[in-house]
C-alpha cells in the first residue's frame, strides 16, 4: 500500500518539531500557493499572507534567476523558505537551533522523501498502461466494464470513492458502457506525461532519480569525463531505456548540475551500493566533495 504525497508530507511536518524542538512553525506549499501540510502550531492566518507575499517576491526575482531560497533573520528567530522541486518548505526556528540538524532535515531528508514519493507515484503510473495493454476488443462487455474500472479509477481515490465510481460505471447504459473503453483508450486517466499509444513517437519513461553518495576516484586510467555508478542503478536504467545511449545527469543538493558519461563501478574495489565515483574534474565542476549526496538521473544522449 502506498500513501499520497500530502499524507507523507503532513507526517513529516508533524514530526519536524520532535526532530528540531527549536522549530516553531513548519509548512509546505506548492509554487502556485496551494498549501500541502502544516504543523499544529501553524494556522491559515499565518500562512496565507506569508505565502502571498512570498509569491509576490518570487515573481520579481528575474535578476538572480528563479528564487531558490529565502532566509529572513529576526532578532531571535529565523524563517527559511527553500525549494524542493515544485514545492516550498518553510520553517521558523530559533536562532539557537542546530544549523546542521535544520539543513539535514530541509536539504537532505525532506527533498529525498519528496523525490521518493514522486518516484513511487511514477512507478504506479507506469503499471497502469500495462494493465491497459491487456485489453482486447473481443472481450465480453461485462469484462471490459471491470477492466475499465481498473483503468479509470484514479490512484489517489479512497475506497469509498472507488466504490462510488464502480457503481456509476455499472449503472451506465449498455451503449455507453461499450463506447467507454474506446474513449478511455484515447484518454487514459493518469498522468499527463503519458501520451496515447496511437502517438507516432515512442513513449519514453520519465527518468528515475536516484540519490547516491560521492566517492572520489583518481589514477592514471581514470577517464576524467566519466563517472562510475552502482551497477544496480545502471541495470534499472537499461531496463527502462533498452539500447538507447544514455548519459548521466548529476545534481548536487546546492543545485549545481552536470551531464557526463558513466559506467558501472567496479564492485570488487569498494562497496559500490549507493555510491557514485566521480573524478576530480567533475567534482570541481559540481563544487562537491567526497561524502556528499547527489541526485542522479539518466539522460538520452
Amino acid at each position, binding site marked *: 500500500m502506498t500513501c499520497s504525497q500530502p499524507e507523507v508530507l503532513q507526517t513529516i511536518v508533524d514530526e519536524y518539531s520532535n526532530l528540531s524542538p527549536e522549530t*516553531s*512553525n513548519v509548512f509546505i506549499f506548492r509554487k502556485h500557493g496551494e498549501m500541502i501540510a502544516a504543523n499544529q502550531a501553524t494556522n491559515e*492566518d*499565518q*500562512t*496565507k*499572507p*506569508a505565502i502571498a*507575499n*512570498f509569491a*509576490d*517576491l518570487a515573481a*520579481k*526575482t*528575474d*535578476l*538572480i*534567476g*528563479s*528564487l*531558490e*531560497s*529565502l*532566509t*529572513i*533573520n*529576526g*532578532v*531571535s*528567530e*529565523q*524563517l527559511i523558505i527553500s525549494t524542493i522541486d515544485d514545492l516550498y518548505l518553510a520553517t*521558523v526556528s530559533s536562532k539557537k537551533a542546530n544549523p546542521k540538524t535544520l539543513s539535514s532535515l530541509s536539504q537532505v531528508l525532506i527533498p529525498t522523501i519528496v523525490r521518493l514519493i514522486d518516484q513511487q507515484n511514477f512507478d504506479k503510473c507506469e503499471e497502469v498502461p500495462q494493465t491497459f495493454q491487456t485489453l482486447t476488443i473481443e472481450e465480453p462487455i461485462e469484462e471490459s466494464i471491470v477492466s475499465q474500472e481498473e483503468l479509470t479509477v484514479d490512484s489517489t481515490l479512497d475506497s469509498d470513492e472507488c466504490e462510488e465510481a464502480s457503481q456509476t460505471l455499472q449503472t451506465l447504459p449498455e451503449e455507453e458502457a461499450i463506447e467507454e473503453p474506446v474513449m478511455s483508450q484515447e484518454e487514459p486517466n493518469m498522468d499527463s506525461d503519458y501520451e496515447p499509444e496511437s502517438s507516432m513517437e515512442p513513449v519514453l519513461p520519465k527518468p528515475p532519480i536516484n540519490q547516491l553518495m560521492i566517492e572520489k576516484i583518481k589514477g592514471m586510467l581514470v577517464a576524467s569525463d566519466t563517472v562510475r555508478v552502482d551497477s544496480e542503478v545502471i541495470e534499472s536504467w537499461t531496463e527502462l531505456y533498452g539500447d538507447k545511449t544514455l548519459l548521466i545527469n548529476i545534481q548536487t543538493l*546546492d*543545485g549545481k548540475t552536470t551531464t557526463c558519461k558513466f559506467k558501472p563501478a567496479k564492485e570488487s574495489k569498494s562497496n559500490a551500493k549507493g555510491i557514485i565515483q566521480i573524478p576530480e574534474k567533475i567534482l570541481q565542476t559540481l*563544487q562537491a566533495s567526497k561524502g556528499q549526496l547527489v541526485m542522479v538521473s539518466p539522460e538520452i544522449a
Partner: protein
Amino acid sequence: MKQKMNRTETESELEDAAVISVGDEDSDFKNLTASLLEIRKLNGVLGAILRNKTSAVVDFEEQDKINAFALLSTCIHASSIEIAKPLNLTFVESVLVEGKDAKIFCIRLGDNRLDVLMETSMSEDLITKHIQL
C-alpha cells in the same frame, strides 16, 4: 601615515562610486560607505547599494542593471517584513534571497540598509565581517 594614505585612497574611490545624496550624511553612513568599497573589492560581489532615508551609494558592475537591482532590493525589504509579520518574527535584521544565478544579501544597520548582489558561491558571512560602523 598609513592611515592617512588609506583615507586618501578611500576618498578617491568614493568619488568613483555613484553617490546620490539629498541630505547631510551621518558618520555611520560615511563608515558604511567605506565598508561598501571594501566589500565591492571582494571576489564574487557583483554590486551593492547603501542607503538611508536621505542618501544612497550605488556601486554596480553592470550599469544597466542598477535600476533592476534597486527595485528588487526595495521589494525584498518590503516583502520580507510582510512575510515575517504573521509568523511572529520581530524586527527583520537581515534577509538572504538566493536565486539560481546569484543571491542578494540585505542587512539593516541602524537607520541604514546595505544590499549586496553576489555570486551564489560566495558566503554572506564574508560581507558581515567587512561591515564596520
